[in-house]
């Protein structure tokens, strides 16, 4: 299974090293109009993601995390402020990023294998049938979907569909990954395994990542930096660098005292927001 478990080719880069800005959000705000009311979903978010950084976004449900990923992907324009990628404003679908959305977008009439290989059928990433088959087999192995190659998405569980979507994105190794709750529907064991596999891949390929998660532990284990959002409208409440070395061993990391300390520190920021978010929802009724 650990196909991609290779030795790190370059010296590991620390999270604090100064690097080129890959993604930049400048005073970004987003309003949604629903039933005559405008709701501010995101407010005054300024955020920079240096090249090759692994950034995690955490925050209560409905605080605008998916909205931010949509903007970086160029699927949504901000109401105020600007989004930049590689120094240029994002104005259309950003084909430099791979985006794994919260709701999977597998093609229902294609089998798992044909879904995963679809990127290589496109003119811009054309690969021979043989190469495609080989890469698809590798990815299926990586996400543990062996035996389900010929199944249709409707025949898979929620977690299996997520894994297929992950494989479909990872197969063409985009330079930047936008991951919205990629491991949400998985059991603890599989989650650990896939977190570790993703870490290997990202470290080996030096990818830039924005990971959205509800799971603070996951954020601390995987990211170089964690950003905590307030409840709606989403603002940045806290930012924390995570000083652990790369490559990382997520399994081993979670038993270190520093890990617990950072986790607790961030949890203290987050828990007020969860409370505020639930209080807000109740108050609205």
């Amino acid at each position, binding site marked *: 299974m650990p196909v991609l478990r290779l030795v790190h080719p370059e010296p590991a880069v620390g999270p604090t090293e100064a690097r080129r800005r890959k993604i930049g959000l400048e005073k970004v705000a987003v309003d949604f109009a629903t039933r005559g009311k405008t709701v501010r979903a995101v407010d005054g978010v300024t955020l920079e993601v240096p090249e090759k950084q692994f950034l995690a976004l955490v925050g209560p449900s409905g605080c605008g995390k998916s909205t931010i990923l949509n903007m970086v*992907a*160029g*699927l949504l324009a901000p109401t105020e402020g600007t989004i930049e990628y590689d120094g240029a404003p994002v104005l259309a*679908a*950003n*084909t430099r*990023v*791979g*985006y794994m*959305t919260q*709701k999977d*977008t597998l*093609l*229902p*009439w294609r089998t798992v294998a044909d879904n995963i290989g*679809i*990127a290589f*059928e*496109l*003119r*811009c*990433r054309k690969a021979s049938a043989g190469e495609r088959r080989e890469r698809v087999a590798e990815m299926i192995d990586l996400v543990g979907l062996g035996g389900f190659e010929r199944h*249709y*998405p*409707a*025949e898979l569980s929620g977690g299996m569909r997520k894994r297929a979507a992950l494989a479909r994105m990872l197969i*063409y190794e985009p330079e930047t990954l936008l991951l919205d709750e990629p491991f949400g529907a998985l059991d603890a064991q599989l989650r650990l395994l896939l977190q570790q596999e993703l870490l290997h891949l990202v470290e080996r390929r030096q990818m830039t990542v924005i990971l959205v998660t509800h799971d603070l532990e996951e954020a601390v284990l995987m990211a170089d930096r964690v950003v905590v959002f307030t409840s709606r409208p989403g603002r940045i409440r806290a930012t924390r660098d995570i000083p652990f070395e790369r490559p990382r061993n997520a399994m081993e990391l979670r038993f270190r005292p520093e890990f617990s300390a950072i986790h607790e520190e961030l949890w203290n920021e987050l828990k007020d927001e969860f409370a505020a978010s639930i209080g807000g929802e109740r108050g609205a009724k």
Partner: protein
Amino acid sequence: MRNRNAAPKPEVVLAQQLVFLVVLLATWQFASGRLIPAFYISSPSDIVAIVWKWLADGSIWLHVGSTIITLFMGYAVGALLGIGFGLLLGLSPRTERLVAPFIAALYGLPKVALLPLFVIFFGIGLVSKVALVASVVIFLLFYATLAGVRDIDRDIIQSMRLMGARSDEITRKVRLPAILPWIYTGLRTSIGYALTTTVVSEALSSNRGLGFLIEYSASQFNSAGVFGAVVVLLVLSSVIMIPLGMLERRSRPTRPSR
């Protein structure tokens, strides 16, 4: 112990069905002229005789051929136009909103009412019948195609675009596969309507076709002829439905449950 709910073997079912048919025909034969005047219900032997006579002198082929030609020309023209308009309006929602009420009104209109108009336009003959059949099929395929276009998942298109897919690739890999099952369904359901309309148009304004044969026989008080033409029509419609079964198998068994 025998399972009472177990389905019987297919051969057993077939045998039972055959017995049922034989009993039915025998009863009919017996009742004819004894319980009910043959003038009303004819009899199986008379029907067989008249169909045999039509086959022997070849006169039936004119009618069968005419029905098949009308049916398939009307079906093809209507389907092509319906799919075409469905795609066109599906991809330009603003025009669709503009014309939607007019299309809905026309759809509700019983198309048979248009036959005299078509006869004025095209004269009595093939073209006016084809026009009537097409006018029925076109709406069914139009709405099926439109539903298919609406069924296209925007999120899937966006994800393909992020992957670097060009517009034509999205059309081939997402739009068409999403629409095709709807078109299959439209094609399947509309053939029945097309056949009905064909027969009606032949009965109303034609001098050939199975619809005409039924109507003509009735006007001659020839009940065996009416029943005979109905039997031929029954065989014809069954023959047409077999390829439809194949079409059904082509559409995928696994659709997402939404």
